[in-house]
């Protein structure tokens, strides 16, 4: 049996090494928000390009980086969505198109607000917090100890900090944007995280019934040893799926898949190496306090 718990300080240090730079980055550079959050511009135009994909490819080749998407709206007419751009810049792009496809007829050019408004984000956060509270209550009830609930939620919080921090860093260095897909990825990660943690906790609960006399750290060690294979196996199946999606899937979902990949790894790690050690730390603190109150 590996004595996982005796290295608990190392686990917290590893987590801190990932989370602290992320938090610093969140303060310094914030998140690089996409057009879903900031709003942008739409431009409806008549161009004799063969189809929407070719037009998008051409704009990409000409380094028009503000393009978000190109949709066809009928014969030789397209709806191009941009990041926020000025009228002048649009005219430059129009000239580029005119050189290649001939005449460019403009139907409309409008700035538009975000798809994900502040209200939606705020309400989603409220939803997540509420769900976390319910989960805390449920886990605390099922395990008859509020610390189980709190540890599970702290592990979930750990995973959200990991993902938000890393994407803030990616945003600064690789221009990775936070979009609707990212919101979905974070929600997925949060549910996965708790799911995995509960399995480890369940084993601790079961073992404590079978071996009521073993010390708590030893019990947690035993539980980790018994669940780690299933944790790894389960994560591996998910990681296989995500790796094939990353390598073979389209460019559009690349960062979405990376977010899920990071979340899966972090979620697996946090269940065994954050949530379970937290239980031990809590127990130790409680015992110290008991002694202290007895002596004092």
């Amino acid at each position: 049996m590996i004595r996982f718990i005796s290295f608990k300080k190392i686990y917290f240090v590893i987590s801190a090494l990932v989370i602290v730079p992320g938090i610093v980055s969140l303060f310094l550079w914030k998140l690089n928000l996409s057009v879903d959050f900031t709003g942008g511009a739409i431009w409806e135009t008549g161009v004799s390009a063969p189809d929407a994909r070719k037009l998008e490819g051409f704009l990409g080749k000409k380094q028009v980086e503000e393009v978000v998407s190109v949709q066809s709206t009928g014969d030789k007419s397209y709806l191009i969505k941009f990041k926020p751009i000025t009228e002048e810049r649009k005219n430059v792009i129009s000239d580029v198109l005119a050189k290649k496809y001939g005449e460019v007829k403009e139907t409309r050019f409008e700035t538009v607000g975000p798809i994900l408004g502040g209200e939606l984000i705020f309400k989603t956060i409220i939803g997540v917090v509420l769900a976390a509270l319910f989960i805390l209550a449920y886990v605390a009830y099922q395990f008859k100890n509020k610390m189980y609930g709190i540890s599970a939620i702290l592990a979930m919080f750990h995973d959200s900090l990991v993902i938000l921090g890393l994407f803030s860093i990616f945003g600064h260095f690789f221009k990775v944007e936070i979009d609707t897909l990212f919101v979905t990825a974070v929600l997925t990660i949060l549910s996965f995280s708790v799911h995995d943690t509960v399995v480890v906790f369940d084993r601790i609960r079961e073992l404590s019934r079978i071996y009521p006399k073993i010390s708590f750290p030893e019990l947690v060690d035993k539980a980790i040893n018994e669940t780690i294979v299933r944790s790894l196996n389960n994560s591996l199946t998910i990681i296989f799926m995500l790796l094939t999606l990353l390598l073979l899937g389209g460019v559009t979902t690349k960062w979405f898949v990376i977010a899920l990949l990071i979340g899966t790894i972090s979620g697996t790690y946090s269940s065994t190496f954050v949530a379970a050690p937290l239980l031990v730390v809590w127990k130790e603190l409680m015992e110290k306090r008991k002694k202290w109150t007895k002596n004092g």
Partner: protein
Amino acid sequence: MLDKLKRPKSVLIFILLLSFGALIIDLPKFTIKFDKPFKVEQSFGGYAIGWFGGKFVRDLQIKKGLDLQGGIQVTLQADMKDIAEKDRKVALESARGVLERRVNFFGVTEPNIQTSVSGDNYRILIELPGVTDSKEAIQLIGQTAQLDFAEQKVLEEKPLDNLTPEEKEKQAAVPPVFAKTDLSGKDLSRAAVTFDSKTGAPQISIEFTDEGAKKFAEITKRNVQKPLAIFLDGVVLTAPIVQEEITGGQAVITGQFTLDEAKLLSVQLNAGSLPVSISVLSQKNIGATLGEESLKRSLIAGVIGLMLVAIFMLGNYGRLGILADIALIVYGLITLALYKLIPVTLTLSGIAGFILSIGMAVDSNILIFERIKEERRSGKSLLPSMEAGFGRAWDSIRDANICTLITSFVLFNPFNWSFLNVSGMVRGFALTLALGIAISLFTGIVVTRTLVRVFYR
């Protein structure tokens, strides 16, 4: 012993029938998926399947999102002439919120709704995926849905000068015999379609908020034996005679509704009325933002990933792994069938999420199989350790999945609580998450267990 064996076989037959049914619903999807290697597209062409001597025609198709299929874009112009300059942005935002609620009450469709302000033009752009009937879309989003209750005018009237311009406009909208009361659509807590117990005609039951109920009681009290008119967007819907004071805070709106009209109206009333009147500026069909290519690539990636998981399970758990793989296929079939039946709007991220859920669906199998391995190691023989494996793994499977269900429940917000979101995107996510959990519980436990009982001896 024989009795025990009889039951799993009937469960097996049920599972087979269920999978077969799901397969039939899924089929057109499969012709897309396995177009090249199997060339089955021709034999199942279109939506008609030529089995049982006759033709089984159905038009169930997976509903694709804006990125995969495009949809319809409606541009709305908001009429801001009665609204003070400084309030216009707020009014536009709240109109956007109401429209979003209306669209989302209609189902999980994942619309895009954006505002656009340029100069004096205040506009709202709505993109709806997979909507073919532009009339329906415009009907749904294009009415102000201002509900008012008006009583017969009494002679001594409030001097017109004391009214704000907004109130004046409202007064003007009401024919002279009726005067608006302070009770309006804002006082509703919910509206629902019900049917007249005598004629069976569709009607709308409304429930007032506590304050609305008080107002309604007062109004009905002072109008006994007089008509009380109900106006929608300034048009009289119905003007029933009040029989007695109504204190329960409930009322019924009757009128010459068709069922669809009644449904539409209840959606609009639930979503709230628009703070500004809007008109349709333009509507057009828009194409997909992503090419067929990205869809194909993701599907291929999904198939390969699925094979990897299958091989992994086989390598790790041997014959048990094969049974888990069969359960996984059943999972895929049922999930796809439900996506079509509900229908769930599938975007590229949704497909990625579905593929991910396949990876997660084997979790309960892994839990159970690891347990069986442990029991075997502790010296039990095969059959008891299998049953013990299923039994002991249940606690952790239950608790872990209930936690995920809690998350999806809160995010789906089934009661439309206003402090939680009703956005299509978050709801779509919650729905697919909940479906994934429910189906994987079924396949991971019921299906695998039955397969193990019948075939693994």
